[in-house]
C-alpha cells in the first residue's frame, strides 16, 4: 500500500505532460514513469522498512541486466505508526540508491565460489511478461571436504578474476559446471537488503535506529517492545493512553 501511496505522491509533481508514474502491481520494479519521450522509462523499486522489526525483511534479487542503463533506483521507506503501537503510518526516513549499486554490492557479498554461487536467471525473454524471470539465485556448496578442494582448484584455474562475479554467458557456463559436478543446495534465504552491506544503506539504517521518536530512540523502542528494557509496561501503557 505504501507503494501505491508513493506513486500518488510522485504524480503530484508537475511533470509538464511528458509522462506520469504508474504502479506495476506484480512486475519489477514497483513504479514506472510511462512516457513516449523519456526513454528508457525511469523506474523505482519501493521497499518498506518497519524499523522495530529485527531486520529489514525486504529482498533484492533482481538481475543487474534489467537496469543496465541505470534507469532504476531503489527507495527504502522507513515507517512507524504515529504512536509507535498504533495510529496512521508516518514516514520516519527515506533512502534512495541506484538499483545497479545495490545489485553490485549483493553480487560482491554473496558470490564466493566455490562455496557460494550466484546465478543469473535463465533467458526467458521469449515468454509472456508474467512468466519472465528476473531474479538471481544463490546456491551453497554441500559436498565433502575433498570435493570442496577439487572445486576450489577448478575456480583457481579461472584466473585472477575467477571469483569476481560476471553476468557474461561464459562465466555463467563455468558456474553451471560447478553446479552440475558438485552437490549444491538452493539458498532461499538470499538477498535480504539488511545483509548485503551496502555502505550507504548501512548508514541509513544506523541513522534511523538512532532517530528519537516519541521520546526514545527507535532502537530503544525496539528493546522496550521486545521486553529487553526495564521501562517496559509503563512506556507501553503511556502509548496506549496517549
Amino acid at each position, binding site marked *: 500500500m505504501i507503494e501505491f501511496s508513493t506513486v500518488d505522491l510522485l504524480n503530484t509533481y508537475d511533470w509538464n505532460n511528458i509522462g506520469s508514474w504508474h504502479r506495476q502491481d506484480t512486475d519489477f520494479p514497483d513504479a514506472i514513469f510511462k512516457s513516449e519521450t523519456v526513454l528508457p522509462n525511469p523506474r523505482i523499486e519501493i521497499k*518498506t522498512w518497519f524499523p522495530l522489526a529485527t531486520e529489514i525483511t525486504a529482498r533484492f534479487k533482481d538481475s543487474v541486466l534489467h537496469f543496465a542503463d541505470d534507469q532504476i533506483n531503489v527507495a527504502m521507506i522507513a515507517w512507524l505508526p504515529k504512536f509507535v503501537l498504533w495510529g496512521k503510518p508516518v514516514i520516519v526516513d527515506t533512502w534512495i540508491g541506484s538499483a545497479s549499486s545495490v545489485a553490485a554490492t549483493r553480487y560482491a557479498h554473496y558470490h564466493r565460489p566455490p562455496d557460494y554461487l550466484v546465478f543469473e536467471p535463465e533467458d526467458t525473454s521469449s515468454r509472456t511478461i508474467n512468466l519472465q524471470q528476473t531474479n538471481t539465485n544463490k546456491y551453497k556448496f554441500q559436498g565433502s571436504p575433498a570435493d570442496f578442494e577439487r572445486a576450489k582448484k577448478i575456480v583457481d584455474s579461472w584466473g585472477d578474476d575467477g571469483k569476481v562475479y560476471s553476468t557474461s554467458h561464459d562465466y555463467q557456463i563455468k558456474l553451471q559446471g560447478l553446479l552440475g559436478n558438485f552437490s549444491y543446495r538452493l539458498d532461499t534465504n538470499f538477498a535480504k537488503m539488511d545483509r548485503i552491506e551496502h555502505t550507504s544503506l548501512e548508514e541509513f539504517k544506523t541513522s534511523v535506529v538512532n532517530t528519537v521518536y516519541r521520546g526514545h530512540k527507535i532502537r530503544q523502542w525496539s528493546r522496550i517492545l521486545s521486553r529487553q528494557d526495564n521501562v517496559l509496561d509503563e512506556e507501553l501503557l503511556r502509548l496506549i493512553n496517549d
Partner: protein
Amino acid sequence: MKYTEVLSIASKEILLLNGRFLPVIDIAKPTTLGNWQKSSLSSRHYWEI
C-alpha cells in the same frame, strides 16, 4: 527531459517524504496492553503494509 533527470527529481521527491503521513491504513489503538500483546501486531516480523 532525460530519463536521468526524471529519476533524479523523483528521487528527491521521495526523500522529501520524511514526516509525511501515509493515507493507507490506521492501526487501531489497543484498548489494553494485554490486548496489544495478544494481537498479531506485537509479533514484530509481520509489520509490513
